[in-house]
């Protein structure tokens, strides 16, 4: 076990050496932590969003069917459901009514969805929390929307959506199908789209093929496709930010290189003494890598912890606008904390890896100091 014992002695020495030069190492530790904090925040935040989206889509139907009229999305007649007949593998299908409503007072888009389940009367609505917040109203208050015929329709707010899944529900307005048709001037017998629930995920593609062959003027959108699109978008945004941060990583690498090679005369003499009293080049190398290891570990822990707090407890104020927004109404929500191995490995390779590469050469240069240098 003498190899282990030897490493313990070397680690012991590098710790004492770090503590003796706290000042010098503090600035490096600070920059290192900052870099890890930035990258980790980006990763945790966009992965949290991705998780949120996946979570939100979990209950949504597997296939959405839209009618395409000369390449343009058109309303789908209800009798398409009859024309399709029974499809093996489909456990439920129904028509949906939904659309965007532009509120000129708030300069914002709402998503209006006609809901059967909520049993709303024709003059009642349920609001998403961001809509309620912006309009400054709550349950029992009245709100109005201007319909397609130019008249304003007034609605009583029945309740608010809970903010559990606020990412999606923030700009939602639930309304009765009857009021929806009136507001948007849509005839009975027409829907925005049709949704299908498919039990076995392996049959989804087959079902979609069958639908298209029976109804050639429609376009099926699979849940899997939506998920992968979100996945791609989030990774892409993350990637863009990483590329932008690449310059700061490079700056950090140069800084680390400079720190490792720019030793004071006193430090050089110390290494010279160690070599003279019997330490070998590889002892010095290992001692120095222990030093780098301790700094990396500290920076990684601090940076990651700070990023975790930043993203999951303060809502990532630094990156919110870049990574999240697709609407004027910002959802106000806390992400569910999640950590995974892929993230950690990627983060490690983006930070610790460049640091190690940057210090190899300077460390070696110090380590090959001549043992008799102190005698000259």
């Amino acid at each position: 076990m003498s190899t282990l014992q030897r490493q313990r002695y070397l680690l012991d020495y590098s710790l004492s050496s770090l503590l003796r030069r706290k000042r010098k190492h503090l600035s490096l530790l600070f920059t290192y932590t900052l870099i890890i904090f930035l990258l980790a925040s980006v990763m945790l935040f966009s992965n949290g969003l991705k998780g949120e989206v996946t979570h939100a889509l979990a209950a949504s139907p597997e296939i959405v069917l839209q009618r395409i009229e000369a390449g343009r999305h058109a309303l789908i007649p209800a009798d398409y459901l009859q024309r399709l007949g029974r499809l093996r593998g489909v456990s439920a299908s129904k028509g949906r009514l939904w659309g965007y409503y532009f509120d000129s007072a708030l300069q914002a888009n709402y998503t209006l969805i006609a809901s059967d389940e909520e049993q709303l009367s024709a003059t009642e609505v349920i609001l998403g929390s961001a809509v309620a917040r912006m309009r400054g109203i709550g349950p029992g208050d009245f709100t109005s929307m201007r319909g397609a015929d130019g008249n304003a329709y007034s609605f009583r707010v029945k309740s608010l959506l809970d903010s559990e899944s606020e990412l999606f529900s923030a700009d939602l307005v639930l309304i009765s199908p009857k009021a929806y048709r009136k507001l948007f001037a849509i005839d009975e017998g027409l829907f925005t789209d049709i949704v299908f629930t498919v039990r076995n995920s392996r049959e989804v593609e087959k079902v979609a093929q069958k639908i298209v062959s029976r109804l050639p003027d429609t376009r099926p959108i699979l849940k899997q496709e939506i998920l992968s699109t979100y996945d791609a978008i989030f990774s892409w945004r993350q990637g863009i930010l990483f590329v932008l941060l690449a310059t700061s990583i490079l700056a950090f690498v140069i800084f680390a290189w400079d720190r490792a090679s720019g030793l004071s005369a006193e430090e050089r003499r110390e290494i010279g003494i160690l070599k003279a009293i019997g330490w070998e080049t590889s002892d010095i190398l290992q001692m120095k890598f222990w030093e780098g290891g301790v700094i990396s570990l500290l920076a990684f822990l601090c940076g990651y912890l700070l990023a975790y707090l930043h993203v999951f407890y303060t809502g990532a104020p630094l990156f919110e606008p870049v990574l999240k927004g697709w609407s004027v109404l910002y959802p106000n929500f806390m992400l569910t904390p999640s950590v995974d191995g892929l993230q950690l490995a990627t983060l490690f390779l983006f930070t610790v890896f460049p640091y190690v590469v940057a210090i190899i050469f300077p460390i070696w240069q110090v380590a090959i100091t001549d043992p008799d240098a102190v005698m000259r």
Partner: protein
Amino acid sequence: MLLNPAILALLLVSAVVLLMVLVAGQFALRLLRHWEIGSGSERQLCLERRTYLISTLMSWVFVFELLSLLLFVYTAESLSGQFVGAMCATGVLNANPWGWPTLLLKIALFFGGALWLALNGLDNRGYDYPLIRHKYTLLLLLVPLVVVEAFSQLRFFLGLSPNIITSCCGTLFSSNTEGVAAEVSALPADTMAWALALSGVAVLMSGLGYMKWGRGASLLAVTTMVAFVTALLAVVSLLSPYIYEHPHHHCPFCILKSGHGYIGYLLYIPLFAATASGLAAAATAIWRKIPSLSAYGFITLGYARLSVVLFLLFYLISAWSVFRSNLVMQGVWW
């Protein structure tokens, strides 16, 4: 091309590792030309000091290659969400012809690096550095491997465009498609069980034999390689159906997921480490007749012992994963 952090990290690592290996390779050429161990000339002293740098570089290259192998598999796994039809890493690797070669090259580099480090460790104990020329020739052989790996990985990622329909595990391994993977799955499970058992006995016997009599290093090398390949084939065609409890699911990657208790790590880590140390034992055993190394037979023995223990661990975990499974295949499916 996907602008994904993990992919960027992998490309960064392969570029830097390539640079490091090229520096090492260039030094290897200089060393092979000018090395004179007995000389006290400044050039010799300078070369000698630089060997420390190269050893350090190569150790880190090995560490980073190992990490990059892991990250590559993870990334392929995580990308499967962006490819409709790709259920797991297999489908993503299948998305273009560069996927599998990249993975295999990474594995090859892992073993190449392990061999080099084993040789380096032994050589550093001989007071006249007896293996230095072999060591640096081996390093020169590793250089093209790193170049090809970096290129292949770059082509793989550049060629990925999300949402092209790829085959999932099921279709990849279905027996009517051609290709290596299809043949693997076509191997009948009972034959595979016998092959696994035989290769296991062979590698354990040759390892124990080496520990007892100190001979048969080349046999150990051969049985180690055979055992490694057989074990990988067995994971695909024999073990994975038991682990997934599904007779037609033959994916070598899904066992790394949490859904299967991460049992893949329990299988792969001992298997790869056992193979690396078996090869290291064989590679260090060749030189035991060199006078300055004759005292270090215990290193080879250590590698052999480690290899035997780890192989045994792998076989025990394999057996346990079959035993614990609810799937009954013998006599039912084949």
